[in-house]
């Protein structure tokens, strides 16, 4: 199988802190990969580097045989790698439908095409089709700011998928979502993604979810990949057990809640 996404000797340091150390990963087409690790292990840094938010300090990233190291996020997006966020990044004042329309519009637009009208029949029909695929019809005309957390994350993912990417990175799709909602949400998402035949990498804390949906697990610890194996094998790995999962589930949930804010802060720090 040919690799669609490949990182070669990627390192990332922030001053004295090493956020990624010698990351070598090769992901094949249609693979579904789970990325696990404690907070600060380097998962989001990995996602940020692949999607162009942060350039690696050293090393190369290749996509579909092409070197994308250091490209801007929008270039990488255009090439076919999209992502979702720990904290859903949607247009808060716009309705769900308009969020999708804008996303579709941008995906459609090339060059001066950006000056064409946004609201055309065909695009509206596509937006409605997406709404159905992600089962968000009931929220169609609701502003994103009023959505329940789960729906907002769903919208975030749907928007990432609008451009029909070849690779999708999901950053903690279930963080901040109640335990009862997690599986229904993931069922919708994974169902839709399967339909589109996209390669998926997702960061996840919940090992139940990981073991249910992924075919392969990457475990991060202190910026390094300490395990790269199918889920059953990975979750049984003593190092993974010690450094990633921990033994206190309650503690883990708390951490996840904290991760929410931290993630937002990281993104805004990166912006500033």
């Amino acid at each position, binding site marked *: 199988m040919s690799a669609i996404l490949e990182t070669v000797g990627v390192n990332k340091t922030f001053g004295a802190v090493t956020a990624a150390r010698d990351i070598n990963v090769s992901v094949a087409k249609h693979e579904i990969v789970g990325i696990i690790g404690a907070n600060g292990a380097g998962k989001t840094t990995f996602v940020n580097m692949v*999607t162009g938010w942060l350039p690696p300090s050293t090393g190369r990233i290749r996509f579909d045989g092409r070197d994308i190291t250091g490209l*801007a*996020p*929008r270039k990488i*997006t*255009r090439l076919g790698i*999209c*992502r979702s*966020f720990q904290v859903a*990044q*949607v*247009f*808060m*004042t*716009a309705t769900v439908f*308009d969020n999708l*329309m*804008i*996303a579709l*519009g*941008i*995906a*459609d*637009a090339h060059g001066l*095409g*950006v*000056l*064409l*009208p*946004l*609201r055309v029949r065909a695009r509206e029909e596509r937006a409605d089709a997406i709404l159905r695929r992600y089962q968000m019809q009931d929220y169609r005309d609701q502003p994103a700011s009023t959505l329940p957390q789960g729906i907002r994350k769903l919208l975030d993912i749907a*928007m*990432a998928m*609008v*451009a029909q990417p070849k690779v999708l990175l999901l950053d903690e799709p279930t963080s901040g979502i109640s335990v009862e909602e997690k599986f229904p949400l993931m069922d919708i998402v994974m169902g839709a993604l399967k339909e589109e035949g996209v390669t998926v990498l997702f960061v996840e804390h919940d090992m139940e979810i990981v073991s249910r949906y992924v075919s392969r697990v990457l475990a991060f610890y202190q910026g390094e990949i300490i395990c790269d194996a199918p889920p059953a094998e990975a979750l049984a790995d003593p190092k993974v057990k010690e450094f990633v999962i921990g033994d206190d589930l309650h503690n883990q949930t708390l951490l996840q809640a904290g991760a929410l804010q931290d993630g937002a802060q990281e*993104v805004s720090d990166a*912006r500033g």
Partner: protein
Amino acid sequence: MALTSDRTTLGLTVGFVAVALLGVFVLPDWLLNQILVAFSRALAVVGLLVLWRTGLVSFGHALYFGLGAYTVALLGRNYGIGEVLVTLPAATLASALVGFLLGFIVRRYREIFFAMLNLAFSMVLFGILVKTEALGSTDGFNVEQPTLLGIGTDDAAVKLTALFLGVCAIGWLTAVLVHRYLGSILGSLTTAVRDNEIRVEYLGYSAAEAIHGKYVMSAALTGLGGGFMAISLGQVDPESMVNWTVSGELVFVTILSGPGSVAAPFIGSLIFELLRTYAFELVPYAWQLIVGGTLLLIIFFLPGGVWSVLSRLAGRRGVEP
């Protein structure tokens, strides 16, 4: 898309034609003059409105207003060119060009820093103008009599009517084009950029480039407005064209108008002009008090500006404005 399929375009056309007819057949000269000045400013405010929808407020757009005004005035003074088909495009282009260059810098900033950086740039132009005798320094100078296709007039009433129709035509064109721009994919990136730049970036479009484009557009429109203002008033000077208080005025009219529609700046600007005329006549020392008070009231109680009131009124009668 056919022009008529768009209700706003239709509404704008009806509105501007109505104003033009009223102006030519009914309204007294002084009011025509007020509309002329108000619409000139409104052109600039439309530019600010685009920025505001993007979540950006500039405290320095007097830079472009002044550039436009001085371009028109200097073309007349130094080259004897009064042809509006030359001076107004030149004003627009000069502002757009400066906006394009400064855009590379300002597009990196948001919020207060965006506002203040623009202020700094505009104050540099102000300082240069005030201190340069060749550019008229504090006094500024008179603007050449305008001509259209080489035709000019000494008759004040004819000139006024012609300018008035001109500003109505350009106002209509600007409003329609900007409205259609806002309805385009790029136009949808106004509120989108304001809401979430990260998402815009990850949808494959550069928020910075989108902002740069809007900035150039606002600069061009503000330059056009300034150019028209110079012709309307027949005089330019730094205090009333370039000082930071002018930027403040533009922002004030933007807030007063509300972000709701491209028609709002024209209405808001006219209200502002009439308010000012009567305030100077009736309560000469309370003008700033009125402006300041209005600003506070709008910020606290009417964030949608005048437009929100109008559309609410119209909505009650079941008519879409």
